[in-house]
């Protein structure tokens, strides 16, 4: 039996098409259990387009700030490492000239100069940390939260170099021995990953506001910046606010009323 080139190419082409067709038909008609499995969002979850926060420094005192820091660090199993070079922080206090460099002046009021400012991850709209992450361990969610996927973090610390706010901490050592009281509902981190505030994504998912907002007695206002009817937008309309290092173009989602 002899076959010419034309005949051979016809048969080969037809078999490729038939093979591919069968394969996709098989996948459509008989999906594996994982392709067929269904997942859902919790119907109670808070949904927003761009979560943001206003920090009203007029209503905040040192005691409330300490409460905010304590509750955050406790529920998220943030270790308390005294060594400043290895410390881990999600939310902390900073002086005016450190929080808002370039905006301080020689003759500003002593009160503001000395006042501690509550700072945390700014959940930037244009986050430089996300751009530099080589594994997409840090990424921006649809609701604007700059999230960390600890499973993917390789500890390269590019994000720490990129973040202009120092909002990220690296685990130089196993954090477990430095956690006083473990919250069994939330994981810890391991040696060699970077961590930061995640705007309490795990609380938003079940319909709760971030923990710091809850204990702040109304000094922290949390809401959807994309929704003109939201409380946060009303507060922003009514007050003059400043943001940290807005000149860098990261477009922070945290606003301060001084």
């Amino acid at each position, binding site marked *: 039996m002899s076959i010419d080139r034309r005949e051979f190419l016809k048969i080969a082409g037809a078999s490729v098409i038939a093979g591919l067709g069968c394969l996709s038909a098989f996948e459509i008609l008989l999906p594996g259990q*994982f392709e067929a*499995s269904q997942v*859902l969002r919790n119907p109670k979850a808070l949904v927003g387009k761009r979560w943001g926060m206003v920090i009203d420094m007029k209503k905040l005192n040192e005691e409330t700030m300490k409460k905010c820091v304590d509750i955050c660090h406790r529920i998220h199993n943030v270790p308390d490492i005294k060594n400043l070079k290895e410390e881990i922080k999600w939310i902390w206090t900073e002086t005016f000239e450190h929080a808002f460099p370039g905006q301080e002046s020689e003759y500003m009021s002593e009160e503001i100069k000395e006042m501690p400012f509550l700072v945390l991850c700014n959940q930037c709209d244009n986050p430089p940390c996300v751009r530099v992450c080589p594994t997409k361990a840090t990424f921006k969610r649809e609701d604007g939260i700059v*999230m960390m*996927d600890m499973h993917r973090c390789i500890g390269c610390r590019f994000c720490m170099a990129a973040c202009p706010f120092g909002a990220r901490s690296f685990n130089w050592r196993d954090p477990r021995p430095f956690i006083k009281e473990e919250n*069994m509902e939330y*994981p810890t981190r*391991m040696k060699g990953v970077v961590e930061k505030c995640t705007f309490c994504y795990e609380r938003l998912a079940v319909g709760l506001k971030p923990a710091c907002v809850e204990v702040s007695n109304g000094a922290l206002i949390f809401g959807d910046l994309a929704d003109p009817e939201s409380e946060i937008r009303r507060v922003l309309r009514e007050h003059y606010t400043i943001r940290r290092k807005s000149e860098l173009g990261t477009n922070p989602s945290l606003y301060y009323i001084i």
Partner: protein
Amino acid sequence: MYDGWKVILGIIIFLGIATFPILYDIGKASVPPPEPKIDTPEIQKMAEKKCIESKSFMKTEHMVMLDNWRDSVVREGNRIYISTEGKEYDMSLQNTCMKCHSNKKKFCDECHNYVAVKPYCWDCHIEPKEEG
């Protein structure tokens, strides 16, 4: 054959080394197969002792399932899993799996040690407190 005795001696030495692991283990008691336990208080309380999917599926696919879960929860924000039976579960290793399977040593480690795999779940996820 030139140097026949050298060749034969070499073959004998080679066979000795190659079959050593098998010969060494002959007659020794083999490692007992793992016996994962599910006798935790939480499971005893259940009217129908069933995991979220069938036993055979969980046995072979739990690692794929956990991998899918973590992507779904962390990256997509979907936290509820609907099982083939139509029941809804919170996708959480710490808060769903380990609430029932609170005996990590007898449930997880038993098989993982047997097959010498070291999943790094517990570097971050907190294992339930067990006595002993």
